Structures are given as structure tokens and as C-alpha cells.
């Protein structure tokens, strides 16, 4: 470790974030590989290291002997300041080499609030932000992850996007790079043109977007005939057969998830109309309980962690949940390993399940009814009743819990003040249920009501909807506050201002790239962190660029408009989304995949789908 870095590390908070060298880190000889990736997570080390997707891709890329993938996380502002002072460009953890010396610099974009940190990291690395300013000598910049299903707001910065699941796509991309690099007259332009032909890759510079006078999209045209007009996301067809990291890196410093993460299935059968994850990860594909039980054991041996988290979007919908938990329980108790089940649905939270998970005894319970009245819950297709919620809470109370956290959203389409009042009423009935439960513990209950602001997201039935303006959201929040009178109910809410910026970035087009650049110049960074989110700077950036944030966030989009994300095919048909939107207005629900196929269209992607019609038996 060189003295300059050491001197800096003595002066910053949590220096362990920047040293690398963890157990399980993958080191290779840089002279014996043909393609070097710097995989960047635009948030802190602690958050990035907890991201399963990045761990999978780090592992799968390094499986190839001629590829070396390293990691890089966003330095905290105190570190960034020292790096600027000492003129030390951002480096990757494994080799310590600056990002500029890599072939490919990749970013995983998990949420829109991380967009500004991409520019923050590129600046620290000394890499020009706009792809048009990067000639042949600069690395190729690629991005993927859920926030790139609408790649347009960050289109100016990346050479290429990988849409959908990356386990198979990224190695193909590496192979093409290695092959073309060996050829004479390698040019970035030729390479990107070829990359655009690999399924799932979108090269934004190869598409011309034109806009109408009213600001909506007029047309999008590929510059070549041999690249797709629409980019279909990639999926892994067989999750049992695909690579899964079983020798994970073990961080020295405490991260958000220091536990075994066992991914049980992808996609979601439910179809809540506000939920982007539900739509973009379809079709539903499960891993078998045999595969999972085997991987869990290996992961335990290789990590020594004392907790296994069964991850998914809705764990109770995993068809082999009891088989899997029984297989795990056959050894976990003896080894003092607990099993945790995040993402539980209210209507599936039973005594039977409670008995299988020890960890709930430790932590509080969280349920997400999302809306205060049955009418609105039906409209958003969150098919959960008040009865379901009280039943689930009672199971928890029976087991000695006295705290419950309830998640809601405000500003949902068709919402009225009556729905807002319903949130307070629902919380009160949970308190009442507590006092009526004869098995309750002898403590006063706390019901926390946590309310976030609805953000319409691409590829959801509500993608055409406007977000409530800030005044309306704040009025609703204040009204709810005045409705909550019960002393056992605690109320927390999200800042409407952050939600406004997120809404604009989520549904933006490529004209937002310049707003992002301006915001970066003004010093915007770490938007997901309350202490750094700076609304005034964002507003100034929009104003300086003469872009109206309300056009993107608060406008109802016409159903016949071309959407910035129409360039991507996420599997689910636009026609289906539209019909779901119309059903919402009639408070009509749609059954889940288990109850019958609703025809979302994702089955055309193929794969070992659990519920899709025509699936292989």
C-alpha cells in the first residue's frame, strides 16, 4: 500500500471501505488477461457489497480465465475531498489501478437516486462524463440494473446498456470485446455496432430520437438496419443451471447484509400495479429446493455466517418454501444458524411459517398494506384485506411481538382523502387487535406507520400516471398526521421533494442527461442519503437547463404517446399494462399467476417458468 494512500486513509472515516484485500477477493495477473472490468456500484461500500446482483456478476465474469473483474464503490465525500487534494484518481480495489486503465467500466444502477453518483465517480476517476467526449483511448462504459430499464436519462453517459439479467449476457459481451480487440483496426464504433447486435444490448448513440414541439417523443430511429428497433431484455432460462456465487467475498467491515443470501426465485406472481420489480423480472422462475439446499450448505461452509436470508420479491409465493425450510432446519439449528424471510405478504403470514423462522423472534415485523382502504387496495391490485392484516398481526402478537411496522404509499392514482384517513383507521384497528389478543405480551404496543410517496415507474400499469404535485402530497401527509390520534401509533413519512426528483429521473428522456450534468456541476451527490440530498440544487439544475421537472413527474402521459422506454421490451406487453391501468379505475383486481394466467406476455421470453401456460412439465 503506497504511503500517499495510507496518509489519506488515516484522515477519513471508515478507512476499511477503501482497502480491499478481503477474504475471497479474486486476484489475477493483469498481464495474463485480455479484458479488464471495473465493476462500479455508485453508493457506499457497505451498500454495494450487500448487493446480490453485483456479487453474481463479479463471480460470473471472473469465471472466465481471460477476464478479470474488479470492484469499485463510491468514496464518501470526506474521502473524495482528500483524493481531489492529493490528485489521486479513483481506483479499483483489487489491483489498485485507476479506472482509466480498464477496458470496461461498468455501473450497476439499482435506483434513480444513484444517477448523480455515476457522474461523481467518473469525475473522481478523471473520465469524461459524456460518451461523445471519450475517444478510442477511454474505457468502454456500460450500465445495467433495474434503473436502466429506462436508460434514456443517462443515455449521454454510457456507450452501451445491458438490459435484463446479466449472467449470460456479460460474458458474451466480454467475448466479443476480446475477439475484436485482437483484430487489426479495432475501433470503439465498430465494436459498439457489433455489441448492439447481441440480444439485450442497447447502444444509445446508434438511435436518433426526435421530439415534438410539446416535448413528447416524435420518433426513434436506429442508425443501422442490422440493429434491433426494440431491445428485448435478457433472462436466464434455467436458474438451477446458472452460475451462483458459492465462494463469496467476506468483507472486513460491517455491511448492510452480512449474511447468506439465497435467491429462491425471480419475478413475482402478484401484479401490484405500482410495482416495477414485479413486471420487469417476469416471467416467474424458481430454483428447486434441492439446488437451494445444496447451495445453502456450501455457502455456510464457505462463509461461516449465522443467518440465511431467503430472498425473492415475495417469499411466501415460493412453491417449495416448506420443503426448503425443512431441508435447511435439518442442520441449521445444530449449527446455530437462523433463517430469515424478508418480503412476506400479509395474507400468507401464518403460524406454520412463524414456527419455521427463528429470526422473527429477534426483529420486528413489517407488513405492507400500501393503501388505507379496500377500494384503493383493489385499485392498485394489492389483494390484501384488513382481515388478512389483523390475522397476520395476531400471529405476531401470539408470539410475543408488540411492535409492528406498516408501509403505505400516499399519492396513489384515484386516491382521495378518505383513503388517507383509512391509513389512520387501519393502524388503530391493529392497536385494538393487540389489546383484544389474550396472548399479547405485557407491554404497550407500537404500530409504526411509514408512508412514502408514490412514484410512477416505467413498465408498470401506472407508468402513464402523474405524480401528485408536492403541495398535494404535503397536504395529504399533514392530513394523515392530524388523523392519527392514537398514542400507540407512530407516524413517519418520506420527503416529497426527493420523490419528485426520483419521479422525473425515472420517467425521463435523454434530455435529462444535461440536467444531471448540471446538477453534478452544482455538487449534487449521494441523493439517497438524507444528509446529502439537496433539493434546491436539483431545482436550480432543471431551471438552468430550461427543463420543466413537472413535464416528467406531474404530467399525465397520453396513452398513444411514444414513451422514452418504449425502446426496451421488458417482456410484459404494453397492451396488458394499459388494460391493468383501466381496471384500476374500476377498482377491479387481477388474479395472480397461480390463480390463472392474466396474459401479461412475459411467457414469450421462455424459460422454466413456474406458472406460465405452455411451460415445460
Amino acid at each position: 500500500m503506497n504511503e500517499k494512500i495510507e496518509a489519506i486513509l488515516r484522515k477519513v472515516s471508515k478507512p476499511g471501505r477503501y482497502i480491499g484485500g478481503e477474504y475471497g477477493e479474486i486476484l489475477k495477473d493483469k498481464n495474463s488477461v485480455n479484458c479488464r472490468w471495473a465493476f462500479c456500484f455508485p453508493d457506499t461500500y457497505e451498500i454495494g457489497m450487500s448487493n446480490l446482483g453485483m456479487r453474481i456478476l463479479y463471480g460470473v465474469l471472473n469465471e472466465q480465465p481471460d477476464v478479470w473483474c474488479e470492484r469499485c464503490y463510491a468514496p464518501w465525500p470526506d474521502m473524495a475531498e482528500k483524493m481531489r487534494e492529493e490528485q489521486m484518481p479513483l481506483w479499483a480495489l483489487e489491483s489498485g489501478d485507476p479506472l482509466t486503465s480498464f477496458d470496461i467500466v461498468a455501473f450497476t444502477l439499482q435506483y434513480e437516486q444513484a444517477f448523480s453518483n455515476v457522474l461523481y465517480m467518473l469525475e473522481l476517476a478523471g473520465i469524461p462524463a459524456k460518451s461523445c467526449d471519450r475517444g478510442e483511448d477511454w474505457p468502454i462504459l456500460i450500465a445495467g440494473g433495474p434503473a436502466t430499464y429506462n436508460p434514456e436519462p443517462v443515455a449521454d453517459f454510457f456507450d452501451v446498456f445491458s438490459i435484463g439479467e446479466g449472467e449470460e449476457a456479460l460474458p458474451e459481451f466480454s467475448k466479443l470485446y476480446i475477439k475484436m480487440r485482437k483484430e487489426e483496426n479495432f475501433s470503439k464504433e465498430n465494436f459498439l455496432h457489433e455489441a448492439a447486435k447481441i440480444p439485450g444490448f442497447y447502444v444509445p448513440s446508434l438511435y436518433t430520437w426526435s421530439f415534438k414541439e410539446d416535448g413528447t417523443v416524435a420518433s426513434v430511429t436506429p442508425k443501422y438496419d442490422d440493429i434491433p428497433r426494440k431491445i428485448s431484455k435478457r433472462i436466464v432460462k434455467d436458474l438451477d443451471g446458472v452460475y451462483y456465487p458459492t465462494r463469496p467475498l467476506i468483507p472486513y467491515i460491517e455491511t448492510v447484509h452480512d449474511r447468506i443470501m439465497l435467491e429462491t426465485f425471480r419475478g413475482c406472481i402478484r401484479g401490484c400495479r405500482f410495482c416495477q420489480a414485479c413486471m420487469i423480472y417476469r416471467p416467474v422462475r424458481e430454483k428447486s429446493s434441492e439446488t437451494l439446499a445444496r447451495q445453502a450448505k456450501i455457502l455456510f461452509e464457505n462463509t461461516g455466517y449465522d443467518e440465511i436470508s431467503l430472498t425473492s420479491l415475495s417469499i411466501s409465493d415460493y412453491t417449495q418454501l416448506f420443503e426448503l425450510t425443512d431441508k435447511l432446519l435439518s442442520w441449521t439449528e445444530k449449527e446455530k444458524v437462523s433463517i430469515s424471510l424478508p418480503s412476506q405478504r400479509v395474507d400468507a403470514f401464518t403460524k406454520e411459517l412463524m414456527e419455521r423462522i427463528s429470526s422473527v423472534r429477534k426483529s420486528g415485523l413489517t407488513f405492507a398494506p400500501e393503501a388505507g382502504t379496500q377500494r384503493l387496495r383493489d385499485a392498485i391490485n394489492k389483494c390484501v384485506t384488513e382481515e388478512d392484516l389483523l390475522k397476520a398481526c395476531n400471529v405476531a402478537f401470539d408470539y410475543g411481538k408488540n411492535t409492528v411496522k406498516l408501509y403505505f404509499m400516499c399519492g396513489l392514482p384515484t386516491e382521495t382523502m378518505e383513503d388517507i384517513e383509512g391509513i389512520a383507521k387501519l393502524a388503530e384497528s391493529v392497536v385494538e387487535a393487540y389489546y383484544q389478543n389474550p396472548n399479547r405480551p405485557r407491554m404497550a404496543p407500537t404500530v409504526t406507520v411509514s408512508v412514502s410517496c408514490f412514484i410512477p415507474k416505467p413498465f408498470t400499469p401506472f407508468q402513464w400516471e402523474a405524480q401528485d404535485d408536492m403541495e398535494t402530497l404535503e397536504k395529504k401527509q399533514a392530513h394523515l398526521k392530524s388523523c392519527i390520534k392514537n398514542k400507540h401509533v407512530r407516524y413517519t413519512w418520506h420527503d416529497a421533494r426527493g420523490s419528485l426528483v426520483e419521479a422525473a429521473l425515472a420517467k425521463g428522456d435523454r434530455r435529462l442527461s444535461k440536467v444531471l450534468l448540471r446538477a453534478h456541476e452544482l455538487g449534487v451527490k449521494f441523493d439517497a442519503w438524507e444528509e446529502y440530498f439537496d433539493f434546491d440544487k436539483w431545482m436550480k439544475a432543471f431551471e438552468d437547463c430550461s427543463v420543466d421537472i413537472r413535464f416528467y413527474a406531474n404530467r399525465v402521459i397520453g396513452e398513444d404517446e411514444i414513451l422514452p422506454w418504449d425502446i426496451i421490451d421488458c417482456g410484459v406487453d404494453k397492451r396488458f399494462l394499459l388494460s391493468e391501468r383501466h381496471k384500476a379505475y374500476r377498482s377491479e383486481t387481477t388474479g395472480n399467476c397461480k390463480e390463472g394466467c392474466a396474459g401479461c406476455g412475459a411467457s414469450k421470453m421462455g424459460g422454466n417458468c413456474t406458472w406460465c401456460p405452455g411451460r415445460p412439465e
Partner: protein
Amino acid sequence: MVSGKTRMKFFKIGKLKFISHLDLLRTMKGAMGRSRVPLKYSEGFNPHPKMVFSLPLPVGAESRCEYLDVILTQECDEEKLKEAINAQLTKELQITEIYPADMSFEEIVGAEYDFVFSDISAEELEKTLEGELYIEKRSKKGSVMLDLRPKIGGYAIERQGQKTRFHALLGADSGDFVNPELLVRAIEKKRGKPVEYYSILRLELYAANGRAFR
């Protein structure tokens, strides 16, 4: 063979100097878990292995003489145990010796360090060490001004290329522990400017009468 109360001597060097005490504890726990060391666990609701470390090492200092006490519930071969645990650790954190814990951590009274300073000359350092060496020490109860000079035992100063090496024995009694980082702060304070670059390496621990701790 070892069993029962067992001591592990290890080093923590290189970039691992930036790992905090809590992180070290978690790392050791993980490595022993993976290598299936038969550790005695605490009783109760949330059982965890019983592990006790010797003298705290500040973040930023390296050491060749850290000690960790555990309780083994089965007899183990020292060499095999060492090999198994080391395979689960990185090369900058390795166990060098395993043996039955005999001396108590409370017997430790002194620690030997090697400091290397980039921009203090031997003469300047010599001068700095003359007279008192006050520094503010903050604690939960408030802050006190503390003279570190009487807590420095024998020392040697020598030029090492462009740098200056300061080899010193510091008080390490539990009630009178001199944090080597604090000593650097005190030197910086007295000379009136920060040291550009320095390193701290702990070499050995001592019990009363100059007996080496083990």
C-alpha cells in the same frame, strides 16, 4: 495438543491496519467458524463464541504481537488448528502460534513499538522528547491534559534513509495505557505541525520486570 483456555498469537499488518477492533473480532469469529474450531459458546438467547483480545490496537497501527484467547471444547493439534484457521484468513492477518493460555492479560505493563516518521529529523525528534509532552486526552468524562513523557520507557532514535525510526517502550498497563496514535499527536502538537507520513508497528508486549509476555 491444546484444549480449554487457549491463546493464539497473530500479526495484523499492511492494509489490515485500517480494520477496527470490532471488524477484527467479526473476522476472527468468521474464520474460526469456517474452519470449524470447536469453540465454547456463551449461554443464553443469542449465543456467541467467547473471545478475548489483549491490548487494544488503534486503527492505523500494525502489530506482530496480538493475542486472542478462546476456549476449546475439544483437544486439537496446535499446528493443524493454526493451518486451518490461517487458510481462512488473508496473508496480512495470520496466526503464528497457538498454546495454552498461561499468563494473564492483566500482567501486561508495557509494549514495544517501532515508529517511522517521514519528515522529522533524528535531532528534531530528540528535542521534542526533552521535557514534557502534553496532549489532550478525551474520554466520556471529559478531556484532560496528559503528559506522555513519563510513560515512555527506554527508546532509541536512528536515521533510516530519509526517514527517522523511533523505537520505544510505552506504558501499557490497563490503567496507564499509552495509545501510540496519541503519542504521534503529542509529537505533532509539540513541533507545531503534522507529520506527513508515519507508521506504527507494535513488536512485543511485556510483563513486569521486563519479562516478555506470551
